């Protein structure tokens, strides 16, 4: 069936092609026969009008795109710095649309307007320094503005103030899985290196480091609303990239070094789900999924689950065969919920001790470890 369809499509394409050449041939009727394959007045006329038509195509495609697909793009940033990124983005878009709209008109309108006619002579216009200056200086001024705004935003986002009160979390990447390590009550991560990887200590935390004693390792990322989260990223094998599109955040994870990114979430997951744009987006997605489910069920498959929005951490640097499925759910909690959640998580040192214990452990003295005095140094390798 598919192959039949393919054949039909190919035949139709061939017919369309033949028709098109025929149309171009017919436009030659009446003109003196020109064997040279060089454009004659008729060609110039036809192609000139087509150029003008192509301008319409570009404009229609742009306007259609804005209406049909404009709603698909990322909306309301979920992080504090996101507004800065988005406003720079919007300013850039306005400028680009103006330039694009004008230049495309000029290109295609000139191609139409000045289409050749025999016996006509072009204007000999070789250079004009004033014009060159105009289109060097105007872009230069506009770009200077964009550069300054961009650098201001970049500096604000990327240079992390160590004095600030932040939640320190390590994002740990491996083929094809994310983990997160919380620094615990001391807010300092214990040292780590892949050479310490052993048993359930899959992140290679140095268990002899005092700072490591209260570290918590999880596979679902919870972060509190309204506090800056300072991510320190590591990878154990190849390059990965921690991409959190709703937070306008991305940083590569590089084996052998620690990279950083920090942002402050401003909507909890529950709040973000209730944003009008997100409600609309999710219902649209669920419509599409329902359609697909009907088809699946009809062909004996199982229906798809309905979708509820969650923030995601995606891998965005090619990292191997299953790169396309390396993700982790991010949940932004209210500060209270976050506190509650973190209390419930098992402490790595305890887990390691339990795993290593030859016999059932006698007492549960792990929480006492929390009182270890913290040295104010960067503890991550």
């Amino acid at each position, binding site marked *: 069936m598919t192959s039949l369809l393919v054949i039909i499509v*190919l035949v139709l394409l061939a017919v369309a092609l033949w028709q098109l*050449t025929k149309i*171009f041939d017919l436009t030659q009727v009446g003109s003196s026969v020109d064997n*040279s*394959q*060089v454009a004659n007045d008729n*060609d110039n006329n036809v192609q000139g009008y*087509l*150029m003008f038509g*192509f301008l319409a195509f570009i404009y229609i*495609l742009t306007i259609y*795109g804005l209406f049909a*697909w404009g709603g*698909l793009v*990322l909306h309301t940033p979920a992080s504090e710095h996101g507004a800065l990124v988005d406003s720079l*983005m919007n300013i*850039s878009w306005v*400028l680009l649309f103006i*330039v694009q709209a004008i*230049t495309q008109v000029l*290109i*295609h309108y*000139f*191609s139409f307007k000045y*289409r*050749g006619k025999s016996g006509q*002579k*072009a*204007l*000999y216009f*070789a*250079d004009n320094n004033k*014009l*060159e200056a105009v*289109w*060097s200086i105007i872009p230069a001024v506009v*770009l200077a503005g964009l*550069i300054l705004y*961009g650098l201001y935003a970049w500096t604000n986002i990327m240079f992390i103030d160590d004095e600030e009160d932040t939640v320190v979390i390590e994002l740990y990447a491996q*083929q094809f899985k994310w983990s997160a390590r919380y620094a615990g009550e001391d807010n300092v991560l214990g040292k780590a290196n892949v*050479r310490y990887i052993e048993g359930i200590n899959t992140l290679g935390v140095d268990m002899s480091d005092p700072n490591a004693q209260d570290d918590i390792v999880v596979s679902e990322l919870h972060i509190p609303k309204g506090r800056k989260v300072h991510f320190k990223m590591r990878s154990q094998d*190849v390059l990965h*990239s921690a991409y959190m599109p*709703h937070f306008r*955040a*991305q*940083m590569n994870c590089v*084996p*052998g070094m620690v*990279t950083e990114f920090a942002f402050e979430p401003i909507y909890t997951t529950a709040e973000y789900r209730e944003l009008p744009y997100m409600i609309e987006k999710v219902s649209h*997605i669920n419509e599409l*999924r329902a359609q697909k489910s009907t088809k699946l069920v009809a062909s004996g498959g199982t229906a798809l689950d309905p979708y509820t929005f969650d923030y*995601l951490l*995606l891998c965005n640097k*090619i990292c*191997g*065969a*299953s790169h*396309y499925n390396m*993700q982790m759910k991010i949940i932004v909690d209210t500060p209270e919920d976050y506190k509650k959640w973190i209390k419930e998580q098992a402490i790595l040192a305890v887990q390691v001790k339990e795993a290593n214990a030859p016999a059932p452990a006698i007492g549960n003295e792990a929480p006492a470890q929390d009182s270890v005095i913290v040295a104010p140094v960067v503890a991550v390798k």
Partner: protein
Amino acid sequence: MSAEGHDHGHDHEHEHHHKETFITKYIFSIDHKMIAKQYLITGIIMGIIGIVMSMLFRMQLAWPEESFKIFNVLLGDKWAPDGVMKNDVYLALVTIHGTIMVFFVLTAGLSGTFSNLLIPLQIGARDMASGFMNMISYWMFFLSAVIMLSSLFVEAGPASSGWTIYPPLSALPQAIPGSGMGMTLWLISMAIFIASSLMGSLNYIVTVINLRTKGMSMTRLPLTIWTFFVTAIIGVVSFPVLLSAALLLIFDRSFGTSFFLSDIYIAGEVLHYQGGSPVLFEHLFWFLGHPEVYIVILPAMGLVSEILATNSRKPIFGYRAMIMSVLAIAFLSTIVWGHHMFISGMNPFLGSVFTFTTLLIAIPSAVKAFNWITTLWKGNLQLNPAMLFSIGMISTFITGGLTGIILGDSTLDINVHDTYFVIAHFHLVMGISALYGMFGGIYHWFPKMFGRMMDKNLGYVHFWITAICAYGVFFPMHFIGLAGLPRRYYTNTNFPLFDDLQNVNVLITVFALVGGVFQLVFLYNFFASIFYGKKAVQNPWKSNTLEWTTPVEHIHGNWPGAIPEVHRWPYDYSNPNHDVDFVPQNVPMKPGEEVLHH
């Protein structure tokens, strides 16, 4: 100079009596015109392979859950059992598609073809400075293409870590099967390719500097030659850096060094690597990688400038500004590589510097675009297929170039980096634009290469379908990129978040398939015209440059008699002092004729 040329002309006539064998004429030829054709045809064959690959992975993206017999037919039982493409094969296809299109089609196929064809013909030289080196250059390119294609047939598959081959993924076969033998062959192929490219570039530089005919000063060179010349310089400056990166990667892979690797735990064991950094590789790679996009686009710009002026019957507007902008682009291109690495983990301060230098490139680019548009203004446009592709190139270059202002801004790059937005941007600004330049060049110089004309109506059909499909493919990609869809995902079905993008993906694929299939029109036109095209006249487009003063039939040494002397710039179209609307460069100035341009 002229006398010398004359002697050479006589030499040639003697040579002509020696019977040229098939091998010396068509295979190991040292004639630049034959070498140009060899580059072109090799480039076209590589292009077919690259485009077919893209059609396959576009089908996978549009209909990820379907099975296609064609996958099984083309990829075999191992890679597409039951017609379902495997996930690492998808990555192999995108990797080899990128490598082939960037290096083998748009670098060697474009620059190799037209630099070889036009440099001697347009500057008035009998051949390249070293014909022998030129021949070696082509055959090394051919060898590297063969090695690259043979990597498709090794057991674990070809390189599949993206065309940027970032280690550690490209260094460790444990990380992805393609990083075994496939990657070794990729690196060997590229090393040979770089050697070939260097020999070609040195030849172009030396030829342009030394072998210009009498009167052909640097400011009378056609813009094609200026762009080829500057491109060759960029290549000589930056390609060796990629060679060193490739060599160091070979050391890391095969001899246990740690240039790019450190602290790696994979497949249950800690590897011995210590102290290297993948970020170093990224720096070395992009030190070539970014200039590379200008190596691709500058020759296309030169071809477009020449075609626009000839077919507008007008001087190219702002000839000197065009040269200055090419030089500015060339200089800036070598100091912007870091904009590929804003979020690589390098110091954010460097990001600031690279944002600044990157956005500066928009200035000379704007100068070029506006000069082209002004060239069209009040012209007498001859809308030949070559001209349509050139006008199309201005359009796609602007559309694609403008989004570079977003990607070059480090703040905005954070969120669109490595998404489909990037794919849309670079395919329009360097992929499609350079391809249009190449197509324009082929339609325009086909009579010079093969002595026959291509069919114009097929050319028109080819252009319009290609133009619609190119926008149809890449315009919607901006939107799905802004929706946060990462590139190099085998399927998006694991992310319900992206379910609403699937219809757009289907639309893109439909355009890609139609656009891809319709390149057959070009192929048919090209190959049929070589044998059955209408015989060309000497100067079909009424052009000013010297290549059209050579006879239609190719001869060794290009001109049967003396090399013509040059008396004027190449853009005297519609000069008010002359009755005809073109004045070739070898026409002497009339008594009292003034130079009307700067």
